[in-house]
């Protein structure tokens, strides 16, 4: 290989490395700015809702007043859970066409590292009682009569994010 060719390849590699770093950093910067901008609009205690990765709405605590209350008695400790159905919450913010039977809904607590995966079909089946209970600390916890959410361990306390993906 000639010297010129070697030098050119070297320069291309060097430029490629610099370009890679700059573009990754630009992308990181943009992502950070976007999330910073998005988070900034949230009022304290609001739960952002993401549809296909994009934040489309935030579930404000004040909105709860517009929704009907629901309740059930959980069978393990025989305590009454009272709150708002996830069915009502999502219908309040998301368009009908996003809410298909196999739409995946993920309710997340980042601070506790917990989440629950549900389909719209399960949520829309009102006998499953998939609902949010307002805890004493003012945060939301997801409770349900569904088998995989039947016990306290399986509930999602301190919910702070909802992700919705339409297949």
């Amino acid at each position: 290989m000639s010297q010129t060719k070697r030098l050119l390849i070297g320069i291309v590699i060097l430029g490629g490395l610099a370009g890679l770093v700059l573009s990754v950093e630009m992308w990181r910067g943009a992502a950070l700015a976007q999330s910073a901008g998005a988070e900034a609009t949230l009022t304290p205690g609001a739960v952002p809702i993401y549809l296909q990765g994009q934040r489309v709405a935030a579930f404000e605590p004040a909105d709860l007043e517009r929704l009907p209350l629901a309740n059930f008695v959980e069978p393990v400790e025989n305590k009454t859970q009272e709150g708002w159905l996830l069915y009502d919450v999502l219908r309040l913010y998301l368009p009908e066409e996003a809410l298909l039977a196999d739409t995946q809904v993920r309710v997340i607590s980042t601070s506790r590292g917990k989440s629950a995966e549900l389909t719209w079909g399960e949520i829309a089946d009102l006998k499953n009682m998939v609902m949010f209970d307002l805890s004493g600390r003012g945060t939301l916890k997801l409770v349900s009569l569904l088998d995989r959410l039947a016990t306290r361990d399986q509930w999602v306390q301190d919910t702070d994010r909802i992700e919705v993906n339409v297949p």
Partner: protein
Amino acid sequence: MLKLRWPARPPSAGKSHRGETRWFTQRLVETSPLRAADPRTKLALALGASLAVMLPLPRLGLFLAGYVLLVAWARLLPEVGRHLWRARWVLGLLFVVDFWLVGPELALTISLRVALLTGVFALFFSTTTPRELGLALEALRLPYRYAFSLTLALASLSLLEEEWQAIREAQAARGVQPGRGLRELWRQAGDLVAFTVPAIVLTTRRAWNATEAAYARGFDSPHRRPYQSLRLSRLDYALLGVCGAGLAVLFWGGRFLP
């Protein structure tokens, strides 16, 4: 741009007595109880601790509390403090930028992570002598010749530093003074060569003298038997056990932790 100034000595330089260089910030803390621990244990502790940067904030906080207790027990708070002090501007800047762009939680997390990475190896390096480092490297299956050359290099640092200073003076006495700005760039390059060539020659000479001196004292003998060998003591097992268990709980402790 290529304007170099050659201070007579670096600002923090000083010599306690001839040849003993103190311009490095690391010091051996003889009073630390970690002096008695095996260097491999300390290396494992430091590496384990640097993994903790991956923990989420509440757990990172718990880890740091434990880490501070360990450092305090090892009487190394001033050493770790000195490292953090040197990084204070960067840590401050990181905190402010993150606070401004995102929020206090991220700002705190990032600052704590960087602080941890900055101070964590002081545990190892301020309680280990070059000889112990060599023994540890040997015990970690590095061939003796490599470990020896590393400890020799550490032993030669003060000599090389004196030579750098002497070259600077000797060349300055002949009018070699880098730092005249861009106009005489080529001449400046020549001036820099007047430093690097003697430095390379003297270093090579030192390397050759050391090679001869080592072979004259039986280096590479197949009969070599180390005078000291490393052995893990109860202290090592206790440290590894406590710190390993602590990290394991923090990483996999699941719902029992915040």
